[in-house]
């Protein structure tokens, strides 16, 4: 009797090579989506200041073998987030572009701001981010690599 054994389907090397290729592709695709998921988490429940809802923003950098996402305050809102996070000490408010300050129909050359306590809003946003980012990444990588 003569027995011939032949391989059926791809080899282990083929599989790992394909997986590496897919892994690199996933890095690119997942970056944008993870940035969006993260900013959504930061924005959900973000405080409002002076009638504007504070928002987060993501900067995504991708390489073939890694992915880096930095979440930070949206443009022009860093100060507001800072105050929401750590508060502000008592300080004077002086006019910068006009001759006097106007508030509720009254004018003043200077206003004594009593200060405000921080409410750790950026920290809370970070916690929301951490809550979602893991599962989101898993989902995205799974999908990108063909998990069923």
């Amino acid at each position, binding site marked *: 009797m003569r027995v011939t054994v032949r391989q059926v389907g791809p080899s*282990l090397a083929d599989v790992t090579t394909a997986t590496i290729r897919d892994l690199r592709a996933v890095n690119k695709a997942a970056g944008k989506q*993870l940035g969006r998921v993260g900013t959504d988490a930061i924005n959900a429940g973000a405080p409002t200041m002076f009638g504007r809802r504070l928002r987060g923003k993501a900067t995504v950098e991708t390489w073939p073998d890694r992915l880096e996402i930095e979440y*930070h305050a949206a443009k022009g809102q860093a100060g507001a987030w800072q105050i929401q996070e750590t508060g502000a000490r008592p300080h004077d408010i002086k006019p910068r572009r006009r001759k006097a300050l106007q508030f509720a129909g009254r004018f003043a050359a200077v206003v004594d701001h009593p200060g405000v306590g921080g409410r750790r809003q950026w920290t809370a946003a970070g916690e929301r981010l951490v809550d979602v980012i893991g599962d989101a*990444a898993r989902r995205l990588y799974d999908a990108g*690599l063909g*998990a*069923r």
Partner: protein
Amino acid sequence: MPNRSLSYKVEFDTRSAVRDLQRLTREGKRAGEDIADGFDETETAGTNALRALTRQLDTLEQTAAGTAKAAEAIGRQLGEGYDPSRIRGFVADLDRIGVTFDEIEAKAEEFAAVLKRADDVDLSGVRGELDQVGEGLEHTRASGDQSRSVLANLAGNAAQDLGELGGVVGSLGVGVGQLAEYAVDGNIALSNLAKVAGPMLALTGALALVNQASARNAEESAAAAEATNAFKDAIDELGPSAQAAAQGLTELLDTAVDPSTPTLFENLGDALGIAAEGIGELVTLADGGDGKVTDLAVALGGMGFTLEEVAAKMAAGGQTWTDFVDQIATDPRVEGASDSMRTSLENLFTAYTEAATIATNRGTFFATSLDGIRQAMVSNEEAAGNLADLWSKLLGDLADNGVIDTSAGAWNRLRDVLGLTDDELAELAQQKIDEQLQADAAAADELNAAMADAGAALDEFNASANTAEGRATAFAEGLDAINRSSDIGLAQRIIASSDALDDFAEGLAGLGDIVRENGAIDFIPDTWDEVRNMPDELRPVVEAFAGMRESIQTELGHAFETGGLAGFQTALADIRTAVTNELAAAGIEGGQALDDALRALGLDDETINILIRTTGDAQARAALDGLRGIIDNLVSAGKIDAQVAVDIATLTLTDPQAALAEAQAALEATGLDVVLPAELELDDAERAARGFTSQRRVATIDAEPGSSVARTDDAVDDVAADRTATIDTAFVQQLVQGLILGAYLDYIARPRTVSIGVEVTGLAAANQLIDHAARDRSTTIDVDANTYGLQRAIATAISNAIRLGRVAS
């Protein structure tokens, strides 16, 4: 520019995953080569492979033919248009859970109906609780890739080569490691590996997920361990009735377990999941058990449940039996049923719940046990060598715990799970043992080669160590030591550096007269004062003696260089005779004057002994220098303890000869054919020594009872007890050199029991010593009447032996 103080950075680094995958690729290739090599290496491996492959191919042929026939029969019932692959999958499922192809063919109509109904049931929720990885595995398993058995068999006997795979992917987590093993075992198709392993690899690269994944794995591991422990506890507490109740579902579980993937069926939920894919099969199968599923179906049917509804409840309730029970129990139709029906149903539920728990735990235990065996086979050669023991233990455990009944055919099923017959198992165990023995033999060969190298080096060393040049150098060093410490040497140096020596020559002429007139004069200055106050007329005497001494030393050195100790002794005897005669002619005969004269000439006993000792030390140091490399190599080879080498090195500083003896003992203990590396004796003595050591190590000191020398008594007792020895006379002559006897006492007295018989005639002091030393034996000591210093030499030798700890002191 973002505010860096308010930012979160998330990195997903897949570099390590890529590296590990690349390593996995390499190791996989290497493992594949190893497997191929393994088959080529031995006929046994090749035969095994062929036999296993033949068996698997036979099975495949039968399965393929059976599947085709059964599928065709069902297909005829279902008519054209029904997905053939679905039918074949259904047949494969039936085959896996134990339904024979003949049965399928015979009941093709019923099975066709079951398949059609099962396909009509919405099973989308059955796997809802499974995570994606598990789903991937499930899919992979369900794919039933027929090639896997062949691949598994290929990998089987050389599976230990795949250990590296586990190591490579170890950093990726246990899950991937298992996947790799499954893949090579053929339990999942390689084409699906990426879909399962890929996400896990990526997850390990995502920093944010590592902790979560680790926690989840830890929880799962803890749950598995807990389940195993619970099972063991439960088994202990199980009574016969509970076991009987479990029998039906155990049968189901046993037949449902995929032999090649036991660990994938770790709970009854999986088994029920399969059943839910075709509730009809479950009923059919359970009817072959104790009929309780039929009872349940009848009971539920009586309450208005359809079979499809039951399946849907199972799907909605998740994987566990209790969830299913909850689903049914809360249904309004059950609540509205009569008390007797509800009671009947509850009883059924109770029985099934109990049975399900037992079966689940059994499944876990079963899988755990098989895993242990599998891992032992794969990764632990030693354990594999004892595979038969493990097998017996597993069977014993399983039988003791009621998991298998060796009298009811379950044993055969279990054996089939491992895919080994008794003969194959024994053969595998023997193969492992043979491999181990071969490895041991190879290691022994290697060691023997190292030892042979060391022996050759030793021979080479011996050939070079006993040269005239070596002896001359050693003798010169010995003389240097003598002269540095001798009185005459001191006097010489003082005289040479003295300002008041100008007129010494004047007194030289009167030397003979002075000697004749002052035979008893102490003409050897012992101190600086004596030299300072030495009569001028004596200075020429000192110089004359110094010159003669130098001539004597030159002569002795030459004799030693050319003739070794024997030549040295002959020359020494001749010189002493000549000097004694000369001094007698000058009027110095016996007494202190003669002793002084001999001392001045370096011919007194003490000086000669010191010379011998220091020469021996020098030669021992040279020998040790030569041996150092050999000893170091043997330490590296593990044949000499490192501490012994350190002790030898330390002892070299204070007592080179003892260190040499230590080194010889250490070398001897390695089993090398050791000869004394620094033999100072003549060839005949060497032959005697070799002949002696090659004898069976039995020797006797035959001595008449005599007086005591307590210091050596116990030592000789120890050395000579119950032994006999014969030493060639020529060798006895060399006993004047303490090193030889010391070394031999040391050498022969250590691990083996050898002693010395010395025949002595004359030389009363030596006779007395040895008489006493061996007083409980009969000793005849025969020694050349002219042999000098025997007593001291033997004492020194025995003292050496005592110091070296070779004999009790």
